[in-house]
């Protein structure tokens, strides 16, 4: 076969995720083989391409070699496409399945097909042609060498036409004639998309892989494929989005002392992972965060796996966290999900849809680890990391919990795989001491925050969640009754110290009063002494004056006697 030397250009399929994987869609003027086993979604995929094209104003022709076109349309009627509106305007459906009994005598070719295609192409400006179930034509018989020839004829027909051909073919080990035929097609065609289906336990799941795309970069990974009311969706195939710029704003955790411990709370837009065994208060911490966020006016989406909203409300009320008013105000939305109800990839898709519809500022997923119990691919596609990446890309402050069950093989190391994308990791646990089981919490990590690495007791009471003071005792931190005993001892010691201080104060005050009295007495004594001294001085001055006066009188008498003599 001679390959086209013209530059490869592509036509978008507009199937969510596929155009990202194929970097633009399927080749214009080229043929793509869409192969897969029965029920893998080939026909839906092909029809969706045409429905999407019709919505965009492009024309498509669907030749149904396997099913009646009416059946194809009926199957599609359960989807949200409203495909009927495009019929005979942009979408042309043709029954190509031979009717009645069919036999073969010698060689045949696709001359009839090309004649019909030409007639249609002359009539309408076709962008897409789907040959659905081309294997049915081959099933009539004929030798394999002619596959090359017929493909060449189809390529010749396509030359100079801006038409993209999508050819679906069933791949089944039960039908021997096809293996050689499909091998020929695979060898000759430059673009091959493979759909497959499998059972994951009791669940049926589908996959898509771009097996070949000659001349084009593409994602070659096999990815999960979902068929829902929107048709085919590839949930993990959306291109990565740059996260919003990191915020320095802190938002409350809902626990005052935890806020203090984390320098004011979680960073807005950050992801927090809370891990712990059953009953360690993961949900309580998550709900405290949700309640605090709603109270300050943030929109909160609380995704609860396997616990009803009413149960969450009731349980949180018992520890003083009232969610009811926030639910009524609409600032808090609880979305209940059942982990066993869907494939992991379906959960992923529906959670992303919830984000689209609710546009939350804050998010709780409790527990995110429930996804690993859903059927389908979870671990191999790093589903949880993908989800958390979505949250962060949207700037949503999220708190997700992860259940650790040592009995079934999950421990902190498995959570650690998840934690790489989390900014803060709070590890909850039980401390068993003296026959007591007490809840504890430690901050394993908190990016951008200086924090204590001490284990603290987490105390739940009817007035909320509290972190107890840390009392180190040797290598342990006292908790529960031991902590209470220690607290009582400390309190008693404090009380005694206060009593001693009060007594000392009283003694000092008495001494002060005594001193003041003595001071007063001494001052009075001093005043008396001063008065006496002043009186004495006065007396002295008077006596000196008298003496001086007396001396002056004697002197004058003598003078008079001398004068008389």
């Amino acid at each position: 076969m001679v390959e086209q030397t013209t530059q490869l250009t592509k036509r978008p399929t507009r199937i969510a995720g596929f155009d990202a994987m194929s970097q633009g869609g399927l080749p214009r003027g080229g043929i793509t083989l869409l192969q897969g086993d029965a029920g893998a979604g080939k026909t839906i995929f092909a029809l969706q391409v045409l429905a999407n094209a019709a919505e965009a104003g492009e024309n498509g022709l669907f030749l149904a070699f396997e099913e009646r076109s009416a059946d194809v349309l009926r199957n599609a009627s359960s989807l949200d496409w409203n495909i009927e509106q495009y019929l005979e305007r942009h979408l042309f459906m043709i029954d190509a399945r031979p009717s009645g009994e069919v036999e073969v005598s010698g060689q045949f070719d696709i001359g009839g097909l090309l004649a019909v295609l030409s007639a249609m192409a002359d009539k309408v400006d076709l962008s897409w042609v789907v040959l659905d179930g081309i294997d049915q034509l081959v099933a009539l018989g004929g030798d394999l060498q002619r596959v090359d020839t017929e493909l060449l004829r189809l390529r010749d027909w396509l030359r100079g036409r801006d038409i993209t051909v999508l050819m679906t073919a069933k791949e089944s080990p039960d039908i021997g004639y096809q293996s050689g035929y499909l091998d020929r097609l695979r060898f000759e065609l430059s673009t091959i998309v493979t759909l497959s289906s499998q059972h994951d336990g009791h669940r049926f799941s589908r996959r898509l892989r771009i097996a070949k795309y000659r001349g084009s970069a593409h994602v070659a990974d096999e990815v999960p494929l979902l068929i829902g009311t929107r048709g085919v969706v590839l949930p993990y195939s959306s291109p990565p989005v740059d996260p919003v710029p990191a915020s320095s704003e802190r938002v409350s955790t809902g626990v005052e002392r935890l806020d203090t411990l984390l320098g004011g709370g979680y960073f807005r837009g950050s992801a927090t992972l809370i891990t712990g065994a059953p009953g360690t208060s993961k949900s309580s911490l998550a709900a405290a965060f949700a309640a605090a966020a709603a109270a300050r006016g943030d929109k909160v989406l609380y995704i609860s796996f396997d616990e009803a909203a009413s149960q969450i409300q009731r349980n949180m009320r018992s520890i003083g966290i009232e969610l009811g008013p926030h639910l009524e105000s609409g600032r808090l939305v609880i979305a209940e999900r059942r982990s066993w109800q869907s494939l992991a990839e379906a959960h992923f898709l529906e959670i992303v849809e919830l984000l689209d519809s609710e546009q939350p500022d804050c998010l709780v997923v409790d527990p995110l680890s429930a996804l690993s119990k859903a059927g389908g691919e979870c671990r191999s596609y790093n589903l949880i990391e993908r989800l958390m990446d979505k949250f962060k890309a949207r700037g949503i402050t999220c708190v997700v919990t992860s259940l650790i069950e040592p009995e079934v093989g999950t421990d902190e190391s498995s959570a650690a795989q998840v934690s790489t994308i989390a900014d803060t990791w709070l590890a909850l646990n039980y401390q068993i001491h003296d026959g007591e089981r007490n809840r504890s919490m430690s901050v394993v990590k908190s990016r951008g925050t200086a924090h204590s690495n001490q284990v603290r007791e987490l105390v739940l009471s009817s007035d909320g969640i509290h972190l107890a003071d840390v009392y180190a005792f040797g290598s342990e931190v006292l908790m529960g009754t031991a902590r209470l005993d220690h607290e009582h001892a400390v309190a008693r010691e404090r009380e005694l110290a206060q009593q001693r201080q009060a007594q000392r104060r009283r003694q000092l005050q008495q001494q002060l009063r005594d001193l003041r009295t003595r001071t007063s007495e001494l001052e009075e004594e001093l005043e008396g002494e001063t008065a006496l001294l002043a009186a004495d001085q006065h007396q002295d001055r008077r006596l000196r004056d008298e003496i001086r006066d007396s001396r002056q009188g004697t002197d004058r008498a003598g003078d008079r006697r001398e004068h008389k003599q």
Partner: protein
Amino acid sequence: MMTELGAGTRRLMLFLAGDSPGSRRARSNLASVLGDYDLDDSAVTFVNVLTEPVMALDMCVFATPALIYGADETEISLYGDLSDAEALRGFLEGIFGATGQRP
């Protein structure tokens, strides 16, 4: 156009893609056995899909050559250049009977 094989809606049609080698072989191979059934070319409607694609569409004929026989609700098809004489005779005998009696 279609040739009625007697009363009702019974018809024998040979769909061809112009004058391609396969079409020529089919026409020739069919002609060589029609006489055995007391028939000639006039009993067959020849449809050139290149000029009458709508007919191919109506009859869901996408592979050529194709010999189609329709009667009432029944339709049987023989694809190929009719070079397998045994298959061709089997097809025609299914319609006209082993004696080659015209229906």
